[in-house]
């Protein structure tokens, strides 16, 4: 019996919903044959894949150890938990959800602090005034240490915080924090502000491959299928299909449209009967249809695409290059 390809997916919350929706759109619906409470699942219609539902942080450590092949997790966790991330994993594709920035935030009352240079100065002054180092509450110990070191800040101590980090300054357990934020609302509610050049990482959910997992022929073949569908779906989402047929349609006109609207011609130029199929970025659809009608097209149809499969498989190529 061959080892299945293990795909780790977040086990709860919005990340799980977004990840399931993402795979669903890519034609890889995740199913739980043994019921909704099960933490093991499968991909409908594709044998040999085991879906493991884990917490995002556990997904990261399993990827680091090579215990799962592919996983959906935040770049923030990858960078924090793996100092040598590029040796252990390949970040295959940013998935467009789970956006969060890892930022340095200080009390709003520190009206004299706007930049990391201020934080540095205040940290040194703080040690002289209080006889101890300023405390930074965070769960991002490695990211914080590297970022502070890059900015020359040395007079600080890290206080590990597992949750509700933004409450630490008010509770008196730390002077400032490093935490994730999406909108900044929680920080503001806790009377904190983001340091201007204090954004450590702009993170989002990524599809990540473990370099240390067992990548035999069957696993590679499954990964190729999965990544082919994801790439086909990603490409489909980036374009609309625009079709028209008219006599005046020639290569020169297509070149002009390509220039103006960043279109692609998946099936080449117009056919002998003047039939034309274009892929157009969504924002350019209306200008393009105007352009075509001005030049003689009587009707232009526009449709959403489900998949655009192409000969090459850029995501799988990325994975293979990294293994």
């Amino acid at each position, binding site marked *: 019996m061959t080892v299945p390809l293990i795909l780790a997916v977040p086990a709860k919350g919005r990340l799980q919903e977004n990840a399931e929706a993402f795979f669903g759109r890519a034609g890889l619906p995740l199913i739980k044959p043994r019921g909704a409470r099960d933490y093991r699942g499968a991909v409908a219609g594709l044998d040999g894949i085991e879906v493991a539902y884990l917490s995002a942080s556990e997904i990261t450590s399993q990827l680091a150890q090579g215990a799962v092949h592919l996983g959906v997790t935040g770049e923030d966790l990858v960078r924090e938990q793996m100092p040598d991330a590029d040796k252990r994993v390949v970040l295959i594709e940013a998935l467009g959800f789970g956006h969060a920035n890892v930022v340095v935030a200080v*009390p709003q*009352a*520190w009206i004299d602090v706007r930049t990391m240079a201020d934080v*540095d100065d205040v940290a040194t002054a703080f040690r002289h005034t209080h006889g101890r180092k300023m405390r930074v509450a965070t769960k991002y110990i490695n990211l914080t240490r590297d970022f502070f070191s890059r900015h020359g800040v040395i007079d600080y101590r890290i206080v590990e915080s597992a949750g509700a980090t933004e409450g630490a300054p008010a509770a008196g357990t730390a002077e400032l924090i490093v935490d994730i934020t999406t909108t900044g609302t929680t920080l503001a509610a806790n*009377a904190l502000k983001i340091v201007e050049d204090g954004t450590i990482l702009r993170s989002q959910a990524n599809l990540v491959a473990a370099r240390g997992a067992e990548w035999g022929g069957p696993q590679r073949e499954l990964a190729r299928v999965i990544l082919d569908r994801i790439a086909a779906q990603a490409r489909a989402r980036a374009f609309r299909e625009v079709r028209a047929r008219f006599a005046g349609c020639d290569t020169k006109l297509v070149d002009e449209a390509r220039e103006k609207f960043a279109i692609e011609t998946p099936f080449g130029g117009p056919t002998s009967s003047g039939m034309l199929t274009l892929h157009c970025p969504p924002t350019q659809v209306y200008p393009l249809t105007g352009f075509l009608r001005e030049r003689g097209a009587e009707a232009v149809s526009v449709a959403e695409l489900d998949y655009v499969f192409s000969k090459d498989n850029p995501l799988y190529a990325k994975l293979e290059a990294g293994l």
Partner: protein
Amino acid sequence: MLDARRDKDMDATTAQTKDTRAEALVASYERAGYARVQPAILQPAEPFLDLSGEDIRKRMFLTASPNGEELCLRPDLTIPVSRDYLASGTAGKPASYCYLGPVFRHRANGPAEFLQAGIESFGRADKAAADAEMLALGLEATAHYGLAEPDIQIGDVALFAALISALDLPAAWKRRLVKDFNRKANLAQDLDRLTLGGSNGRPEYQGVLAALAGSDPKGAQRLVTDLLSIAGITAVGGRSVGEIADRFLEQSALGASTKLPREVRGLIERFLSIQGEPDDAAAELRALALEAQMKNALDPALDLFENRAGFLAAHGVDLKRLRFSTAFGRGFDYYTGFVFEITDPKGSSEPLVAGGRYDGLLARLGAAEAISAVGFAVWIERLAGGAA
């Protein structure tokens, strides 16, 4: 089969030789009057993180006690020996210790557990003599392992501190320059930034700073209080309104156009370029102090420097073989004076023996008053490897 057994025997013999040799070194330190101590291997992590900085965290073996106290395997022996001395009841009185034992650090090359020997000397008032004795005892270690002519790099952190404190500069700038002494890239950046002007590119502060111009600390505090209440901010968090006001005052005193005068920058850079044999360097530093009218400020540090050189000569150390540099600092912030590193001229640049004076450390570990302290550590495997 036979070969394997012989290898195993050889390994055992090598290990034993290594230990016997290191034991003999420490025995010689004991005969010189240094009491042998064996601090606990498991230590609270806090003092190491606090004194060496967060950067050491990634190299430490950390664990936690059941009640949540952060513990570590000792990454060096200076702090453990210092803590035991403080707890011993003789704290404040002169005491001299030597040690030999394993320390634990994640390293890119080599095993994470390795042997260190060393000496820590506390409470001695005759600092120049104590400093010189440390280097002499350090050189005994390299000689013990058959390295007759090692490279010896020395520095003196107190000289830079004396220079900066004598300069007519705002307190904030002095803090910054002293802090960055151990990070030369940052120091160069600081000098660039300060030469360009302290408040360049900070127009957002100009309103507050203008309003503060000429006010006293109380007035500044009132203004900051008002600003906070206008903005509807009640919780201050960590720093007091007074501290925020003081920092604004400091910056207001710097003024929009204050710059580090070119001649001061020139002085700092010239100072940091002085290096060579101790006698020549001392003469150069004396001349620089005279020229910059800082004789009184630099004299005490320079006197100590020259006294120390005298004691080193008395220990039979050839001063011509010492490479002194004003910019040499060893990268640790707890050194306050003499620092040195002994390396193998034919080996890597990694120190075989390294140490220095750390007069501020015991107070930061909780001593009621400052206690003078100086010491060094010996990397046994590096020495044994080089000798073999």
